[in-house]
């Protein structure tokens, strides 16, 4: 969903009046004709011009009622490579989204839960999961959240998302989950 939305945004930026948030540069030429509503129409979509009541009207989209931290809206799981706690580029938009949401709502709190796959000792994996969660938490803080809004915890290998003893299962278990508190 995230990837589809991103590519739709890219497509729209080049041809349409845009509503895809911070990826828009202020000096991009915005064509006036052929303005069409954003066909993705997701809950997180910012304002889009709508045809109907003349060329000057603006329709407001009220984003204040949308909870950006709701699961499924931004995606809430970051996946990791084996023995690694490095944040991969593909999850950067997800983390940026949460950081913005936290930054604009200072009373919101989140927990980041780190996990590992089943291989290895329980305590070392608990610490590895913790390191993954801390990496995500640190990124959130760097991108605008406050330290006190986030707690990083770990379940090590104790709570796999997927049962299985192969790389397909392991890859789905090496993760950090972001949850609203």
């Amino acid at each position, binding site marked *: 969903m995230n990837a589809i939305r991103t590519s739709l945004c890219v497509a729209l930026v080049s041809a349409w009046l845009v509503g895809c948030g911070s990826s828009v540069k202020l000096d991009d030429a915005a064509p006036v004709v052929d303005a069409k509503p954003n066909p993705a129409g997701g809950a997180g979509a910012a304002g889009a011009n709508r045809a109907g009541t003349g060329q000057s009207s603006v329709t407001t989209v009220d984003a204040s009622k949308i909870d950006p931290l709701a699961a499924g809206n931004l995606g809430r799981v970051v996946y990791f490579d084996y023995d690694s706690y490095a944040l991969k580029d593909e999850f950067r938009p997800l983390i940026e989204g949460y950081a913005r949401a936290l930054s604009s709502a200072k009373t919101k709190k989140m*927990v980041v839960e780190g996990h590992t796959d089943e*291989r*290895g*000792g*329980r*305590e*070392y994996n*608990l*610490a*590895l999961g*913790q*390191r993954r969660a*801390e990496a995500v938490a640190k990124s959130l803080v760097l991108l605008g959240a406050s330290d006190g809004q986030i*707690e*990083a*915890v*770990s*379940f*090590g290998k*104790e*709570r796999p998302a997927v049962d299985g003893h192969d790389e397909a299962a392991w890859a789905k278990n090496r993760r950090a989950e972001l949850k609203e508190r």
Partner: protein
Amino acid sequence: MVIPPETQHGPSRRRWLAGALAVGALHTVARAQFRVEISGVGATQLPVGVTKFRDEDKSGQSISGIVRADFERSGVFRIVDSNGDFDETSRPNYPEWRGRGADALVAGSAARMADGRFDVRYKLWDVVKGVDLGGQAFAVVTADLRLTAHRVADAVYEKLTGDKGVFSTRIAYVTRVANRYTLRITDADGEGGQVALNSTQPIISPAWSPDGKSLAYVSFESGKAVVWSQDVLSGDRRAIANFRGSNSAPTWSPDGSTLAVTLSRDGISQIYLMDPSGGNLRRITQSSAIDTEPVFTPDGKQIYFVSDRGGSPQVYRVGTGGGNAERVTFSGNYNISPALSPDGRTMAYVNRNGAEFKVMTLDLGGGSVRTVSDTTDDESPSFAPNGKLIIYATRAQGRDVLMTTTLDGRIRTRLLSSGVDVREPIWGPFGR
């Protein structure tokens, strides 16, 4: 250990050898909760007769049966034909017992006393020399009959081998069935199990206090890793480490005055010391890496721990006052879960080689490394308090099981529990 000289057995020697060969194959003893499989026994075992204790049927416990099972499980003894009515006052017919192939004989009784307790007595004879080696008497309540049988086994074991027995010690471990976890305490033979904690969330890293009265453990019941300390007898417990982030890996100092734990409260997993109540917190590792799995040396002066400060997890040691840490493991690129023998000379740990996780031992004096496991998915080794056995968790036939092994890896027992995954074993101390 009393090893039978070959010349003394005559016609029974063939029977003794046949017995030894039979035990060399897989020997299964069925029990209520655990199935014990003994394999890889050494070539020589001490043949012992253990006769039915007079009146033990009336006591409700097969005292002689528990003693025989303890001896068989140790791999050190072999039970000979023990039929007959004897007790601690008998005068053994030594030639008859030599004819049965016995080197030693245990007989006893369990008489009910007027106050409802039981008077359990035993005597031990050296059959080869034809000598009475003495015995003991215990006055115990019904609930302690199992424990008393184990104490008899310990006393005989020590008399015949010179080593302290661990039959009357306890182990704690975690079971998991679907989403139900228990922290369970059993006798060292897996029997007499009692539940210390029931949970729908994971429990890991149980640790006995040196006096055997408390268990510390990590519970996820509140949604993250928190260290608890629980009185075994009363069930009273308190959360002693519940800081920001994860709290885990509790372990007691040998004098019981201090706990070491792993805390992530400063943003990274590091090792801290605290009082048993959770106060007086002080950080003793200062790295920017993962430092975890602390364990005290028997003299209480150093802590061994796991760190990946060098790029991959290895075992290090540091003085309990903190300071520079010294690396201890050098073979392989993944060494975790250190456990120290009671004499401080041997470290058991888990090494990962490719996809295989194996319990190894390191001679801390000489540096030699030895493989003691024949499985490939091992976790959490723990020494018996006599230093002669290691218990650990592993995976066999799709189940999590517990294994014990002698330090040379030659005698192993597998404790299976049907339908239940068992993990995280920790051997309790002497002195129950």
